[in-house]
């Protein structure tokens, strides 16, 4: 278990303020989804948390400043599934997952039996056991996403950060990956922080939604409070209807603009 506290976070790219005094809290064991239109600062905020962009303000995991933690220590506490992972096509799934053990291996060392055991379990858990020797370049999108997840899980970190983990997948594989994250979170007591685009899925999986727009936090709360027609119209500039989901929660339905001369719905 692991908690995140960010206060007054500011990230600049040159003169442009990309993240503008944002607060973010993720309680231990919670699943928080970051929402927001393209360019809202979601990915940047996640990169600030993982120490990959310089940021002002407080950025803490379990009360410790992430910038003060040695990089290996940070990698043992926080595992990142990047938005567009770099995929070395000739690397085997096994070798790729073993990269996740890097924070536990000395700078000049190689994997020991313990590392192989951890990765073996992770690959089995993600149904990748039979893919272990396959080259990453031969995997389908869904398989590849599980391989990336396997590498993150091999880090054995209590906090899992996902940057749009499903944006490249079809609806079946989106659900598969998100269900998997939900199960893993339960099994391993993970805290999950994810940036997502699909509002309906975000509402179904997250405990809490945090909406960013133009670098600022503009809404924060359970799905019922954040996913309203007024909020989405204002910050996404999108015409949507919010309908009750038959199984609970809400469905966000985008609707095209009525063309002049045709009868509206």
């Amino acid at each position, binding site marked *: 278990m692991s908690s995140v506290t960010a206060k007054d976070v500011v990230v600049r790219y040159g003169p442009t303020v990309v993240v503008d005094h944002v607060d973010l809290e993720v309680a231990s064991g919670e699943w928080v989804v970051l929402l927001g239109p393209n360019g809202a600062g979601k990915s940047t905020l996640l*990169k600030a948390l*993982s*120490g*990959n962009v310089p940021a002002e303000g407080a950025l803490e995991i379990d009360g410790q400043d992430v910038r003060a933690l040695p*990089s*290996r*220590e*940070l*990698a*043992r506490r*926080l*595992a*990142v599934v*990047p938005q567009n*992972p*770099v*995929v*070395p*096509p*000739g*690397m*085997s799934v*096994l*070798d*790729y997952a*073993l*990269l*996740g053990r*890097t*924070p536990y*291996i000395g*700078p*000049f*060392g*190689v*994997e020991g039996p313990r590392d*192989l055991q951890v*990765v*073996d379990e992770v*690959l*089995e*858990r993600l*149904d990748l*056991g*039979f893919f*272990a*020797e396959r*080259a990453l*370049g*031969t995997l*389908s999108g*869904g*398989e590849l996403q599980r391989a990336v997840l396997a590498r993150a899980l091999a*880090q054995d970190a209590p906090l899992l950060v996902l940057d749009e983990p499903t944006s490249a997948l079809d609806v*079946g*594989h989106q659900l*598969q990956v998100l269900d998997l994250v939900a199960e893993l979170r339960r099994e391993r007591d993970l805290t999950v922080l994810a940036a997502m685009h699909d509002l309906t899925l975000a509402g179904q999986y997250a405990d809490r939604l945090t909406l960013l727009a133009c670098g600022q936090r503009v809404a924060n709360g359970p799905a019922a409070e954040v996913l309203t027609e007024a909020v989405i119209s204002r910050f996404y500039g999108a015409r949507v209807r919010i309908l009750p989901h038959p199984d609970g929660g809400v469905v966000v339905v985008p609707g095209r603009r009525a063309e002049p001369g045709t009868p509206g719905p």
Partner: protein
Amino acid sequence: MTRQRRPAAGAPTSVGVQARPVLRASTVHPRAVLAAVVGLGLVVTVGTLVGAADLGTAAVGRELMNALPGVSVESGLGERQAAILWQLRLPRVVLGALVGGVLAVSGAAYQGVFRNPLADPYLLGVAAGAGLGATLAVVYGAHALPGNVVPAAAFAGALLGVGLTYTLGRAVTGVRSATTLILAGVAVAAFLTAIQTYVQQQNTDVLRTVWTWILGSLTTSGWGQVRMLLPYAAITMVLILLHRRLLDVLAVGEEEARTLGVRTGRVRLIVIAAASLGTAAAVSVSGLIGFVGIIVPHAVRLMAGTSYRIILPLSVVGGAGFLVGADLLARTVASPAELPIGVVTAFFGAPFFAVVLRTSRRLS
């Protein structure tokens, strides 16, 4: 979807019962090492036996046995012939092996830190710096200073070139980027080459000497060059081989490598420094021998695997064998004349590489 979910957990079918192979991380296969070492041994043996002076195979064999402790046989070689073997041929073979090994492993290391398959050991201004140093030494140093100052000047120039590139690459941007470094290398190389060309044009009488040096040569007399290169070669190889796993981690890019806890800036600095030091030392004793640093690591990649745990050790052995073989051709094909070794590495290396590319199905 159904296809990839078949081996799901909780379904103890016959598939699930099947014994899974024991997981093992990528590692260099002992048989591959054995094959490479045997190949190197063969080339070294032939390289020692064959040369412009016909010493006789059996006599050379007996003479070499003499070097073993406690062995004393009459080799049948005269004093002059023994000197050819010990002071010309053998040091040349050893020097070729060292230079080849260093250039190949440095090339592999550069390709790893820059994640660029076209990176070669001369990328960051090493070649241009060495060329300028050698030219200045030939033009101004030969008369003023005692002894052969070309190697020392080339070495200093090579280090200066890399130093300038690295300083410029860091000064230009706060962002820690490998691309910036490559661009800085392009600028530094152009600048140093401009100076070199100018000095050369002002002193056309030394053009030939300078070009002979630039084309590369393993001509030796005695063990001096081997002794000079050996410590740098050892440092370079050890430092780069120590980073074999971290170079694999860098394959996912700097940003992801950092989230895995790697201090990428430091790794890059150490690996580049090691590769540049070795390359500078190699260049100073042999001139600019092209192609080894690109062709050998890629041939290893295609034949044996893409992990740096495989590429690095096999590049050392393969580079050594490749250059000793190339030098063997350089001094025998047009005997008694010698071809520049850089011509041989490209002329025979390129077709060899084309064959490897065609026959390999490893890269997807």
